[in-house]
Every structure is written in structure tokens, then in C-alpha cells.
């Protein structure tokens, strides 16, 4: 690490220790470090874009400049927003997000180029470039990000609206299931979209964040009751039903709705998040054992009941053998072929054949990255996710209130678990369940929801790192003997 070319900005280790020990000096905000890292990320993304264009043997068109500049401008604004509204936020989170989002944009642009002129599935040659749309979604996402930072000056205010958020989240989750087909069309077998004019959004993505706030607020307010009141059963302290009821009700409804909407990835994600929140809040390993037991039971029942679950499991066990079966292992096989083509070092950006992989923009984007950047590149991308989750957990550990701890831990875990589910599916480690790779995949709702999630993490880390404010001076009230006597008229 010594002699690494990256300047550490204003926060070299020696300097920060010196300031934190000498009273009166403010700890470094490290926004300079963040700016340097953002510039580094911007450099990598621009280079990636140039490589794609060169490998595709295209002249460096003006569009490249457009995409690159849009990217730089957007994240400069995000950086300024953080500087303004959360000056003590963690310096590593935003650059990691920026790099992931930028790489996602480049890969999506690269897939656009691959599809140019190629006939689409139904034989028509309509070329629909989506990179531009993704830039727009990123812009909207960053606006939401800045708005969250601006209007949420203290994450603890969220705890007060816990039940409201929980209710909105559940309603949002159910909305596409109950609305008629012209507003909520069924796409790829899952009825999770809402179509408003030209936009289609997935309310479930936002519901996840809302419900996480609810669970964290609920668990913090009821934590003591769980561990004290209740009776012992099979060597485990079970809380009373009325303490835990709302939690299990919301959890059960949410998971059931997602399973009925055939959104298996989201239901697994949500199940895992609540389990971890429960474990973090109570510090009882028994909950994890119980949860995994429940999950196994639920999974076996789902496997018996639903044919699409059986299909997924069969594809997972033998993707290549079921290559030609309808709804069989074609997708996973192609993804595995792509990863195999990439090998250790990858084919080079823009030199692979991503058009061979199905759903390349969304679910299988990790396979495209694996093909073009190889194992080395995909591992780097996964490590960036790890740094992101690490910083989130770090913020959660050092923040001084338990709601922030629980929410921060939950959000960071959600990010990591989402990556595990999708990359595990793409590499055939676990059965494939359709879910987006945070920040990489094409998809507006996922991007917006994840930007809100990152804003919350930054807010929590800012609260953890900011110097403590001096306690508010009490308004000096004169002693009661010194106060004037005031004659008050009796109302007539």
C-alpha cells in the first residue's frame, strides 16, 4: 500500500488522529478525499467508454463526450449536495456508487451497440438504445438522493413515522397485484410493474426501503419487551404474540405478496433482511436458526405448489442439460458460456459478445461484465460492493442511537444480499431469481430506490462521524422569587 499513487486528500492518518485528540479542533470532514476518489472513478468510466468505442471500431463520436460529461456533471452535483447537507458523511460511499453506476452505464451503452442492427426476438429490427434513458434515471436518482439529504437532516425523525411507512410500503407492494392489467401489466410472468404513461415503475423496490424503516423503528421500540416479557419454550425465550404480532403480520404479508406476484428474488431478499434485523436487534442466534428453518419449510412448500419454482430448481441443477427445454436452462447456460469465454482476464471491454446473453441489461449484467472484464474485473466489482456494505456497517456501528444502528445495518445488509442473490444466480451458485444488480442494471425504480438507500446510509454515517454538538444551553429562567407578579383578570 505504501507508495500507492492516490493522494489521501486532507485526511492522512496522522493528521486525523492529531485533530481528534486536541480539543477545540474539528475532525476532518474528508470531503476532499471524496472528490479525489470521484475524479478517479470518473477517469475510469471515461476510459471504459473510450475502450468500448475503440474495440467496436467506431470513431470517437460526440455521443461519448455527451455521456462522459453527463456523468461527471451529475456526480459533481451529488458531491456538492453531500458537501452542503451532510458534510461529515462517509468519504468512500459516494465514489463507489459513482463507479458502479458509471460502469453500469458503459456496459448498457456497450450492449446498445451490440444490438444495433441485430434483429430482436420477434424478428423486427427496432433498435432501442437504453443508455440514454439510464442517464436520465441516474439524474432523477441523484435528485432524489440530494432531496433525501436535504429534507432528512436527522435520520431519527424517520422512526416517528415507522407505522406510516410500513403501511405505505405494504400498499405499494400490493398495488400492482390488485390493479387491472392495463395499469399493471404482466411482464415476463411477474406482475410487479405499474405503468403510468410512458413510465413503468416497480413500487416493490421502494416498498423495500419503506418496510425496512418500519421494521427498524418497530424493533427498536419493542426490543426490551422481546427479551424480557414472554415465556420459555424449547429452551428459547419466545416473546408474547402481541409484541411480535405486527412484525410477523407485515413480514408474512410482504413475503406472501411477492411470492404470489412470482417475484421470487425480492421475496428472498426481503425475508433475509427482516431476519437479519431481528437478529441484530435481539442478539439471539435462535432467531436465525428459526428463520432458516421457516425458509426451508417455505421453500419446500413453494417448490411443491408452483411449477415456476420447480423449473428454476431444475435449471439450477442442470442448466446445460435443459438447454432446449421451453423455460429451461437456456438463460443460465448462455450466462455461464459468457463467463467461460471471459476466463481470468476477460475479452476486453467492447470485444465480447453480450448479445448472446439473454436479459443482458438487467438480470444478467454481471455475466456481461464477467465476459468482458473476466474474473479479475468481476472480482473488483464485487469488492467495490463489499467496500460499500462495509462502510454502511461501519456507520451503523459508530452511530450513537439504536434506530440508526438497526436501520444502517439493515440497509447495508440489503445491498450485499441483493448482490449475492443476483450474482449467485448468474454464476449458478443458487437458483436464478430475477432481481437487479444495484446500480449496475438498467432499471429506473431499482436505481431510484437504491439512491434513496445510499442517501440514508450517508445520513447515518454523517451522524456517526460529526463532532458532537455542545448541549443546548438551557434558557435562563429567573428564580421564581425574582419573577414579576402579574395580575390576571378572571374571564367573564
Amino acid at each position, binding site marked *: 500500500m505504501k507508495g500507492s499513487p492516490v493522494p489521501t486528500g486532507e485526511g*492522512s492518518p496522522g493528521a*486525523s488522529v492529531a485533530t481528534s485528540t486536541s480539543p477545540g479542533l474539528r475532525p476532518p470532514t474528508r470531503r476532499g478525499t471524496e472528490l479525489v*476518489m470521484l475524479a478517479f472513478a470518473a477517469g*475510469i468510466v471515461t476510459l471504459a467508454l473510450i475502450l468500448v468505442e475503440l474495440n467496436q471500431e467506431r470513431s470517437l463520436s460526440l455521443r461519448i463526450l455527451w455521456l462522459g460529461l453527463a456523468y461527471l456533471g451529475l456526480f459533481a452535483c451529488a458531491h456538492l449536495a453531500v458537501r452542503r447537507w451532510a458534510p461529515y458523511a462517509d468519504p468512500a460511499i459516494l465514489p463507489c456508487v459513482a463507479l458502479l453506476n458509471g460502469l453500469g452505464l458503459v456496459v448498457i451503452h456497450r450492449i446498445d451497440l451490440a444490438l444495433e442492427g441485430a434483429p430482436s426476438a420477434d424478428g423486427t429490427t427496432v433498435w432501442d438504445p437504453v443508455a440514454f434513458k439510464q442517464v436520465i434515471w441516474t439524474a432523477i436518482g441523484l435528485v432524489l438522493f440530494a432531496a433525501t439529504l436535504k429534507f432528512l437532516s436527522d435520520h431519527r425523525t424517520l422512526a416517528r413515522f415507522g407505522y406510516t411507512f410500513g403501511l405505505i410500503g405494504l400498499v405499494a407492494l400490493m398495488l400492482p397485484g390488485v390493479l387491472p392489467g392495463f395499469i399493471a401489466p404482466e411482464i415476463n410472468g411477474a406482475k410487479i410493474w405499474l405503468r403510468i404513461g410512458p413510465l413503468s415503475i416497480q413500487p416493490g423496490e421502494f416498498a423495500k426501503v419503506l418496510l425496512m424503516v418500519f421494521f427498524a423503528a418497530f424493533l427498536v421500540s419493542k426490543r426490551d419487551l422481546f427479551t424480557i416479557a414472554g415465556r420459555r419454550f424449547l429452551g428459547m425465550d419466545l416473546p408474547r404474540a402481541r409484541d411480535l404480532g405486527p412484525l410477523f403480520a407485515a413480514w408474512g404479508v410482504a413475503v406472501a405478496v411477492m411470492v404470489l406476484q412470482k417475484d421470487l428474488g425480492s421475496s428472498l431478499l426481503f425475508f433475509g433482511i427482516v431476519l437479519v434485523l431481528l437478529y441484530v436487534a435481539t442478539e439471539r442466534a435462535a432467531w436465525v436458526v428459526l428463520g432458516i428453518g421457516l425458509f426451508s419449510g417455505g421453500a419446500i412448500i413453494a417448490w411443491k405448489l408452483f411449477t415456476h419454482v420447480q423449473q428454476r430448481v431444475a435449471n439450477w441443477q442442470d442448466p446445460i442439460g435443459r438447454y432446449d427445454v421451453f423455460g429451461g436452462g437456456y438463460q443460465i447456460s448462455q450466462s455461464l458460456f459468457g463467463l467461460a469465454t471471459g476466463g481470468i482476464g476477460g475479452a476486453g471491454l467492447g*470485444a465480447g459478445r453480450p448479445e448472446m446473453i439473454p436479459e443482458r441489461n438487467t438480470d444478467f449484467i454481471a455475466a456481461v461484465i464477467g465476459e468482458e472484464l473476466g474474473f479479475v474485473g468481476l472480482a*473488483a*466489482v464485487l469488492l467495490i460492493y463489499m467496500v460499500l456494505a462495509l*462502510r454502511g456497517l461501519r456507520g451503523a456501528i459508530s452511530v*450513537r442511537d439504536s434506530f440508526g444502528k438497526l436501520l444502517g445495518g439493515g440497509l447495508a445488509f440489503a445491498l450485499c444480499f441483493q448482490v449475492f442473490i443476483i450474482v449467485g444466480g448468474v454464476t449458478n451458485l443458487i437458483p436464478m431469481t430475477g432481481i437487479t444488480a444495484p446500480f449496475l442494471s438498467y432499471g429506473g425504480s431499482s436505481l431510484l430506490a437504491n439512491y434513496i438507500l445510499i442517501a440514508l446510509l450517508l445520513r447515518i454515517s454523517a451522524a456517526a462521524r460529526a463532532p458532537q454538538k455542545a448541549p443546548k444551553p438551557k434558557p435562563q429562567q429567573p428564580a421564581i422569587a425574582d419573577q414579576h407578579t402579574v395580575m390576571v383578570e378572571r374571564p367573564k
Partner: protein
Amino acid sequence: MQLTRAGFLVLLWLFVLAALRVVRSDLYAASGLRASGLPGFRRSEKSARGSKAPRQLVVTHGALTGTRISLDGRPILIGRADDSTLVLDDDFASTRHARLSMRGTDWYVEDLGSTNGTYLDRAKVTAPLRVPLGTPIRIGKTVIELRS
């Protein structure tokens, strides 16, 4: 072409290393741990060794276990109130439970009229008491101590 391919991967990994470097420097700064192996730390360590002044408050038991607050001379309010320095979420703690304040070079703990009391290593705190290094202070279900 091969060169750019490898170069890009190297750059990607350099970013990861840079991010981890930020994480590392931040780790030491935030926790106040002294890393003897790092050259940047030697000077500050030497100057701190002479005085055994407490430099941080560590929560050792309870829901907030692991939380550290570096001491900068300002008083530390502990309680369930939102504006406390250490916000406890504990049914056995009062809104304004206790205060740690510095007089001279020593830290003193005083109870702010809490319902369940503050204990300095078994002894109930009724008047401001000097807090030696590493002595547990029990507030509700939370235990904190001062460390250098």
C-alpha cells in the same frame, strides 16, 4: 489492445485499493486506536504516553456495545433524550440520566436525578465522583468505561 485490456483491470483494482486505503485511514481516526506499525502515528503516541488522561469513552455492555466517543473536554450527557451525547434506548434509563464532566485532568460522573441510579463499580453515585480509567459505570443495562 492487450495492453489497454490489462491496463483497465489494473486501474479498476487501483480504485479498490484506494477505497480500502480511505477505509483504513478512517478506521484508525474514528476508533482512536493506536496503530504502532504506522509511521504517521508515532509522534502523537509519544506525546500521549506521558499523561494517562482518558481519551475515549467505550460502551462495554448493553445495546450500544462497541460504541466509542472520543473525549474532547466537553461534558458528556447520557440519557434517553435525543440531544444526549450517548442516546440510550433502555427502559431502565432516565431521560437525563447522568453526566460526565472534566475538571482539571480528571473526569467526574454525576447522577442527574435518575430513577434507577448510576453506579460507579458497585457504588451508587450520589455526589460527583472521580472516574478512574477502566472503571465500569453502570446506567440501566448499559455499562461504559473510560479508556486512554
